């Protein structure tokens, strides 16, 4: 662990000024950044502690819900409006980490958490395009049981670890950020980026920008939304495959659908292929199976993770079944 400076800020302007300084990293819950510093994966010269920014509010509005970037995962998961109007988000949050971690982890930090790829997290491994562009990828021919099968590139197959973000994708969330140039409103589906040629770039957030809050629109499908996560143990484990599904049913017809994936993808993943299969159809096992097949089209496994393709299909079908109330 490298020596670093620490600074606490209490308003957005001083936060932005502080992080504008070269290399500073924001410290929210610290459940990931401190971990990475201890492993020697990141060594920011300065941590800007944003825990005292007044950004923790969760506000119910007529047109949806606003969740402050500093709201703790626990507070979001148990918020009555979240449980009632956006059940998939509550389920996703509660399926992640442990109660202790959720008490500290924030919405903003969760969106920016880094992959748990074991090769990314090994400071002794010099071959990681995510850590150093062009350095290679040790994971590609290594132990790949936990790695992604969708959205991968020749340069990176690291899975995105967030459960929350998968739910947010299914809910059409918007991420609101503020930087020295002003504020931006970024649709969640475009917030994270696939590795492509530049696995070191993980989102469209610009250096020095601060996530202030996330908004969820009032949609018809949100209330009929579920999260299913398959993992190696019953709690405190990253997803082998997860799916968020949301359905707007009109009578026995699906008017609108959202299908988002985690655990098998390099970013929180919206499957428009699956959604297209669903819209206008009558819900049922065969349709859900077809949607699941469509979602996993083009999946490319490595040595140890081919099972994830079939597992993801089953998880998607299960999430759709639950969302349709057919379980």
């Amino acid at each position: 662990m490298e020596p670093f400076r620490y600074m606490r800020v209490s308003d957005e302007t001083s936060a932005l000024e502080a992080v504008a300084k070269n290399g500073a990293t924001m410290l929210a819950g610290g459940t990931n950044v401190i971990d990475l510093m201890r492993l020697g994966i990141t060594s920011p010269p300065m941590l800007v502690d944003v825990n005292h920014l007044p950004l923790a509010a969760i506000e119910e509005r007529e047109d949806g819900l606003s969740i402050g970037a500093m709201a703790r995962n626990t507070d979001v998961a148990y918020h009555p409006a979240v449980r009632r109007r956006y059940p998939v988000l509550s389920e996703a949050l509660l399926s992640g980490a442990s109660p202790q971690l959720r008490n500290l982890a924030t919405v903003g930090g969760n969106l920016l958490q880094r992959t748990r790829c074991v090769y990314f997290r090994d400071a002794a491994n010099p071959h990681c395009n995510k850590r150093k562009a062009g350095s290679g990828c040790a994971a590609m021919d290594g132990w790949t049981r936990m790695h992604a099968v969708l959205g991968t590139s020749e340069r990176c197959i690291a899975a995105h670890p967030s459960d929350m973000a998968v739910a947010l994708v299914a809910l059409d969330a918007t991420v609101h950020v503020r930087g020295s140039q002003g504020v931006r409103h970024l649709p969640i589906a475009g917030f994270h980026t696939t590795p492509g040629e530049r696995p070191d770039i993980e989102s469209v957030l610009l250096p020095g920008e601060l996530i202030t809050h996330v908004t969820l629109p009032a949609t018809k499908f949100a209330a009929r939304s579920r999260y299913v996560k398959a993992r190696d143990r019953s709690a405190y484990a990253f997803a082998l495959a997860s799916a968020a599904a949301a359905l707007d049913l009109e009578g026995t017809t699906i008017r609108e659908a959202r299908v988002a994936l985690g655990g098998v993808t390099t970013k929180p993943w919206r499957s428009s292929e699956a959604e297209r299969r669903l819209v206008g159809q009558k819900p049922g096992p065969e349709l859900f199976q077809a949607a699941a097949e469509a979602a996993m089209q083009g999946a490319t496994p490595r040595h140890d993770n081919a099972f994830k393709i079939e597992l993801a299909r089953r998880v998607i079908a299960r999430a759709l079944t639950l969302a349709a109330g057919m379980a």
Partner: protein
Amino acid sequence: MTQPVTGKGLDRVDARLKVTGKASYSAEVAVANVAHAVIVSATTGKGRIKPIEIGAAAKVPGVLAVLTHQNAPKPPGADEPRKNAQDRLLQFLQDDEIRYDGQPIALVVADTLERARHAAGLVRPEYDVEKPVLSIEAELDRAYAPKDTPRGPSDKKVGDFDAAFAKAAVRVDGTYTMAPENHNPMEMHATIAVWQGDDKLTLYDTTQGGFIVRQKLAALFRLKPENVRVISRYLGGGFGCKGSPWSHVPLAVMAAKVTGRPVKLVLTRQQMFYFVGHRPRTLQRVALGAERDGTLSAIRHDLTGWTSRFDEFVEPSAAWTRPMYACGNVSTSHRLVRLDVATPTFMRAPGAASGSFAMETALDELSYALKMDPLELRLKNYAEKDPDTGRPFSSKELRACYRQAAERFGWARRKAEPRANREGTWLVGWGMASAAYPAHQRESSAAARVRADGTAVVQAGTHDIGTGAYTIMAQIAADALGLPFDKVRFELGDTTLPNAPLAAGSQTSASVGSAVKLACEAARSMIVSAAVADPRSPLFGARPEDVATDTGTLVSKKDVGKKDTYAAVVERRGREIVSTIENKDVKSREAYACHAFGAQFCEVKVDEATCEIRVTRAVGAFAGGKVLNVKTARSQLLGGMVWGIGLALLEQTVRDARDGRVVTRELQDYHLPVNSDVPALDVILVPEDDPHVSQVGAKGLGEIGITGMGAAIGNAIFHATGKRVRELPITLDRLL
């Protein structure tokens, strides 16, 4: 007479200290002027270290020393030949060879932990890398037979397996593999090394065997054993990896020597996966032949495990099967393959956790081949005497274990057909297995001192590795002395105390407990003798056999008006009553086969789509001789069963095939059961009277709880799904 306290479920005497943080674990002992050492681990599995540049690390403020193979001193006893197979070759910077991933290759000592850790990160060695060999299967033609195992000879044949198997009406034959596992006690290994001059050394060390550490370090640094003091008063879990010293111990001693300061060295969680032992990867072949009525006619159990290039450890899995079932034709063997891995070691229920998985799964397969209930099959082949040695069992209440556990579980309601029981999307299955672990007893010493205030201090240099030894020993001592429990204090964890064996192998209760009992009984006799010989005692002149003792009081059986107290006897005598015992009577039990037995019954649910597996119920019944404390005994068994869930479903240490790097070196990747993986577990303590097994009548319960669990869970998974997985851990991808 007062009711004995032995057996009662008393709370641990150290519980309050532990939960309030007042129990000082090895790394927490306050030592003045202590410096902090951090080990730099190799980051590849095989090769040579190029000359290491230490300039940047040495320049960090507060750094006192940076040791590498280029500048590390050579301990004077480093070249002594090894005494036995358990005397391990340690890696303390004596050459440039990398033998396994994570091997210590440099040591940084600084005035604070933060500075030491930072400087350690600046030591960036380069290697001439070689390709490690990590596959047992690829090296099978080089497998060799070790001379023996921790459980008897490597190979053993009773009767004629081949002939019997060829004739058998029903046969099963399978290979069972187990992933390597790491112990991961909550407390990481730690040592504080303090030199007193050049010839005396004190170590605060996380060890299950202070005397073993003393012997090894005394030899290595050419010190008189009595000049090396090893203290380990509290241990945050041992499980075998803290059985004998690993490389960090001499490194800490060396660093203290070089810097002239006491040095504290605590391993990181990652380093717990590197050089403090592990359960080796194993392949086991089990072949069973039976008559149509289920009578076993042939048993074959062969183990092949890995060991390091430079040390030998045999996981004695096939030996587990030897005393289990009445069968006249049994062939067992153990083979080793040397690979580029660190040395494996004993891990909770060595040989038994693994061996029971293979054997008890094979029996389950046989039960389906025979269309016979798995419990019936075991009862059909119940061994009334040890089929391996022909000796009678010292006691064996296994039948009661089967019956009580089956009844509690509701086994009689089981339908044999697999995949026939479901609840919603869950497939439900039931499985069972036998549990067993040998009941060891070793020579041990103990001392009892009765003081003028009517209290007693009882001592033995054993360890409480979380099992409850502090409490149990005090219970035994109180009864043997005739004192109330709260008047007795038990001291352990220090090599200045009477010599005691390694706190491992489920042997402490029987070994140390017996010595404590004998020492205390002797002290009690000494008090009586002192009283009847003392003219100032009301009991003066009485025959010792006419004096009764209870709760610190002596009473004449002939005249109940004549009384004295322990306190008064010692007070008048002017010095403590001290009794020291060396219990060497561990041979008479050799006329018997001594084992603890048990039965495990499990229910699992497997999601029919995602194949996620949950253990939803488990009942274990165990007979381990006399139970010394029902609460700590139950806790030991529960802990074993919980670990059994990890062994069956979760734990595996994965190495990168290219360079031997351990990739699952964090607890986020190496999964242990969390609370929600553990259902309500039901432990039944089956009463068992055993006059032969040890003077206290106890067999030890530290390890038997994990045995049989791998098979019981695997068998339940088969029952739920119809899919037989012969590989642990059974992760969901193996069922998809």
